[in-house]
């Protein structure tokens, strides 16, 4: 092409990135890699090819892990963990800092290698992924440094099994490894089989940074290897990022094992545009939302919701913009969209799109390379909510859209999904934006922006997008546990006192009822069973709740949704009032506690309970989140929101203190509760609803059921409208609760049959964490 021709066409021409360094690194390793275990590379076996999706050419041979490899890696991690944890935080910080610096010094090598294996544009790996990964290590070097000062009561969990996806290979590795190492854990990480190379290069950085042997172990291979890690008995924690389906399987596989678990899964995140938005900027936002990384992003803004009055204008702007997207060689610096990671993924995207009427599909008419896995940017307009594409994750460059009329309808549509990862809100009206942010069920909200990430800002989902957060202080919670074990001994199955000889009714018949929606109601099944004191004397009859009573209680809790938007001040007032009313009847409760226990420390337990209520009342308006120091002009708010409706299997020991701790914690943070009260001492709970009644607790906020924990575990844990389940039961139902919860991935907090240390005063943070969801709200601002 002559200069004259160029002057005529004003084309960009080619701007290829130099990949010599990557090629020579691959060649140095003879294009064949093993696993990284205990500080060195082993040979590995069962090698498979890793392809460059832009050319379909093989880049290298990657080893397939096996049971023995996983065993070796886990035992290396286990051996190394105590010494790594006992290093001074400063020593860990120095090594994490060294890793950050090494990532920085080798950033171009990492970026080119990442693009060659993943197919994402070099601009993205160079300007976004690798810098964010570096930032993660810098930030967490700081966390290691500050751990002793800021988290004196916390210690490492132990060996972390980490399984990451192919869409952000190095960044996801950083999100997993940096916080784990900072807190003194050791890791066994498995990269996705499509993208192992930057993880293997990272191993060399670990060697150079002086990371002790066994602290970081990286084994490659397919999902079967991941499964081996998940099931390994010496792994204390699993962190997984990937598909919701696999997340559910992991939840089931780890149920009852006591393994700590965090899941960062799929999404169908709404991108909401109001009629007063800067539409051109919103269009640019969409480019970053759905055509970033070819749309293969868990938090991609894949569901466009646009206000009716501007929908046609916005669509035409989007279509015009789509025509400008340059698709092709991801190593070209002027490319906007590279290759889809693999043919399998490409086929799945195409099939999902083809199921729609052709006249609703708009695709840019840009030429695609003939070789490699490419898919054009796609917009499908005016889909109804019933269309599968409005519900299902596509994980490709496909935007689907529908319109709304009012802010209320926008919220309704936004929340009409099984997922809850992220949302973008576009409007120039701050009232509208900030009003919507708390109402959208998503872990991350971006106002007039999208896909903003930072190590200091928590990231993670609600609902079937998973649980746990990565980044910020909240991101350390999954990698630490209290130094003092919050549980004491193994619980014995409860011995329901009964005596053939004492079926004499109390002086006056005492038949308790269920407490649902602020009313006392008879159990649906019509069954009751007796409850006895410690001597076996009949105290009264208690109802046996069944799954329909659970359903009714959940409906009542749903109707009390306003509780979750009340002020902390109001909730504190009600809790103090609750304490006041309990205090007024302390003698009566003490007497009942003593009757059940046969001891005379009931009054002490009542006093403890009053104190506990005061404690959570105090927290009501203080567990309020904070502002994060993100590198934008603006704020990132880390807000603690109520989880929603929590089902609780109450403690059998400390039947009042356990009950009251649970209610006070849940209520203080704005949750609604469904309590399956102690099987051993049910009258404590049924008496307690009189106190609720007299303390202005709104109807439906606390619902009390009595009955068998074993029978109710499943209906409670599978109920889709219950957002979390806590289990402090003496009946060993933890496994059942966790595996049933996999159904819709609700959060669980269970005791694995161990008694909670109810009298210890220092476990508030666990309660507050369990009673809240952290939401990060990004608010860029500025006018000028």
């Amino acid at each position, binding site marked *: 092409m002559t200069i*004259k021709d*160029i002057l005529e066409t*004003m084309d960009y*021409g080619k701007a290829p990135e130099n990949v010599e360094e990557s090629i020579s690194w691959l060649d140095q390793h003879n294009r064949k890699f093993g696993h990284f275990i205990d500080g060195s590379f082993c040979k590995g076996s069962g090698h498979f090819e890793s392809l460059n999706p832009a050319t379909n050419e093989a880049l290298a041979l990657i080893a397939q892990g096996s049971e023995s490899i996983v065993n070796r890696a886990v035992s290396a991690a286990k051996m190394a963990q105590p010494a790594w944890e006992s290093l001074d935080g400063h020593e860990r910080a120095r090594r994490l800092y060294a890793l950050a610096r090494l990532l920085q010094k080798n950033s171009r090598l990492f970026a080119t290698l990442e693009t060659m294996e993943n197919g994402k544009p070099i*601009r993205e790996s160079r300007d976004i992924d690798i810098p964010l990964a570096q930032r993660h290590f810098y930030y967490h070097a700081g966390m290691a440094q500050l751990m002793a000062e800021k988290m004196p009561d916390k210690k490492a969990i132990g060996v972390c099994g980490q399984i990451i996806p192919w869409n952000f290979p190095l960044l996801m590795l950083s999100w997993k490894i940096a916080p784990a190492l900072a807190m003194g854990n050791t890791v066994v990480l498995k990269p996705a089989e499509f993208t192992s190379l930057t993880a293997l290069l990272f191993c060399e950085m670990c060697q150079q940074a002086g990371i002790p042997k066994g602290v970081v172990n990286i084994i490659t291979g397919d999902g079967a290897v991941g499964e081996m890690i998940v099931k390994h008995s010496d792994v204390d924690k699993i962190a997984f990022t990937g598909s919701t389906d696999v997340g559910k399987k992991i939840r089931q596989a780890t149920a009852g094992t006591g393994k700590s678990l965090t899941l960062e899964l799929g999404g169908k995140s709404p991108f909401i545009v109001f009629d007063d938005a*800067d539409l051109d900027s*919103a269009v640019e936002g969409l480019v970053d939302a759905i055509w970033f990384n070819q749309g293969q992003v868990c938090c991609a803004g894949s569901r466009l919701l646009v206000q009716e009055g501007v929908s046609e204008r916005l669509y035409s702007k989007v279509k015009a913009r789509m025509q*400008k997207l340059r698709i092709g060689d991801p190593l070209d610096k002027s490319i906007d969209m590279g290759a889809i990671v693999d043919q399998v993924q490409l086929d799945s995207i195409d099939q999902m799109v083809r199921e729609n009427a052709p006249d609703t599909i708009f695709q840019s008419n840009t030429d695609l390379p003939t070789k490699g896995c490419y898919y054009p940017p796609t917009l499908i307009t005016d889909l109804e909510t019933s269309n599968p594409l409005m519900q299902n994750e596509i994980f490709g460059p496909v935007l689907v859209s529908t319109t709304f009329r009012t802010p209320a309808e926008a919220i309704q549509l936004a929340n009409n999904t099984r997922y809850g990862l992220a949302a973008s809100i576009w409007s120039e009206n701050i009232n509208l934006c900030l009003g919507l942010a708390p109402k959208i069920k998503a872990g991350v909200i971006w106002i007039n922006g999208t896909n903003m990430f930072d190590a200091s800002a928590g990231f993670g989902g609600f609902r079937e997008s998973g649980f746990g957060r990565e980044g910020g202080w909240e991101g350390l919670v999954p990698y630490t546990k209290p130094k003092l074990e919050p549980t004491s001994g193994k619980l014995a199955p409860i011995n329901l006192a009964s005596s053939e000889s004492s079926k004499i009714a109390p002086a006056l018949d005492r038949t308790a009822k269920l407490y649902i929606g602020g009313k006392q109601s008879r159990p649906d099944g019509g069954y009751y069973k007796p409850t006895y004191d410690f001597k076996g004397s009949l105290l009264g009859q208690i109802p046996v709740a069944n799954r329909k009573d659970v359903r009714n209680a959940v409906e009542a809790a749903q109707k009390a949704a306003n509780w979750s938007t009340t002020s902390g001040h109001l909730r504190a007032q009600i809790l103090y009032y609750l304490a006041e009313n309990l205090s007024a009847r302390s003698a009566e409760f003490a007497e009942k506690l003593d009757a059940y226990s046969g001891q005379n420390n009931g009054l002490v337990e009542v006093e403890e309970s009053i104190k506990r209520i005061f404690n959570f009342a105090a927290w009501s308006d203080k567990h309020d989140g904070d502002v994060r120091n993100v590198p934008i002009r603006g704020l990132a708010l880390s807000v603690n929101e109520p989880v929603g409706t929590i089902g609780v299997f109450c403690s059998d020991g400390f039947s009042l203190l356990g009950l009251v701790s649970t209610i006070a914690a849940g209520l203080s943070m704005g949750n609604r509760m469904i309590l399956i009260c102690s099987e051993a001492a049910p009258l404590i709970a049924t008496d307690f609803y009189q106190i609720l009644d007299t303390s202005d607790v709104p109807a439906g906020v606390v619902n009390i059921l009595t009955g068998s924990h074993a029978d109710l575990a499943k209906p409670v844990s599978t109920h889709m409208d219950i957002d979390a389940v806590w289990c402090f039961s003496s009946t060993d139902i933890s496994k059942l609760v966790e595996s049933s919860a996999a159904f819709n991935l609700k959060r669980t907090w269970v005791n694995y049959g161990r008694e909670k240390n109810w009298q210890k005063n220092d476990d508030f943070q666990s309660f507050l964490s369990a009673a809240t969801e952290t939401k990060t709200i990004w608010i*860029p601002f500025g006018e*000028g």
Partner: protein
Amino acid sequence: MTSLNANLKTNTLKRNPGLPLDLDWVMSSQANTSAIERRANSLAARRSVKKDHQTGWLLRAISCIDLTTLSGDDTASRVKRLCEKAKQPVSRNLLLALDAPQISTAAVCVYHDMVKTAAQALAGSGIPVAAVSTGFPAGLTPFNLRIAEIEASVTAGANEIDIVISRRHVLTQDWKALYEEMRCFRSACGDAHVKAILATGELGSLRNVARASMVCMMAGADFIKTSTGKESVNATLPVSLVMVRAIRDYYERTGISIGYKPAGGISKAKEALTYLSLIKEELGNRWLEPDLFRFGASSLLNDIERQLEHQTTGAYSANYRHPIA
């Protein structure tokens, strides 16, 4: 030798007749500063132009320059030298080495008193003379004198008039006054094309820039231009995004193409490439021609010359090797 500029599609467009002031449309213009800055900040990294393509793009940048001198010490000899540079902005030898066609700058831009000198110096070259006008740079001289100044410059041979708007009309949101003022300026220009200088550095917000752009286009501006070069903040990428998006909006609704001229502060070849790619991305290739795009610049040309020489020799060039303007 035919100039490249002659081959470009100059003057084939319908001139902007203007529209009645449509305040609903004006007020619907929004500009989210943070989002615009994000786009602006990533623009340069999203597009890279290398080797021969870079040469081509830099030559195009030169043919879009309004080569400018706006100094209190301008004299006839200084302006003549500038005009000769406009005719031959890149030395013949360098063009030969690049195998590039002959080019000129888009125009020469001067104060009224230098219009006659420039017009004489450029006679026969086809290069238009642009005059800054209406009490440039502050625009606070009596209104009748501002109109008279336009008429005098047109009479003296100016083909293009760069007017300055009354910033106070924007700052007080008196869109009607701004519209009327611009209409009068346009009408005083007659056949000369009019560029509306918004002095964006003094308008307070990008939203105001968007709305002022829209009002000036409705009032018949042929070009909208960022700055006088005398404000403390002149052309920036965020401001440019806002203005070219206003141009796009106007084109989408009326079919009329308005030109864009960033001015002041663009002095590096690399920046010029970023501006060209911004225009290509937001408005399309048609706007990369001098009848719709201008750089208001004086030192940019020299930096481009050095880059062009580097393309031919592989060695970084020095200022003294290129004739000064």
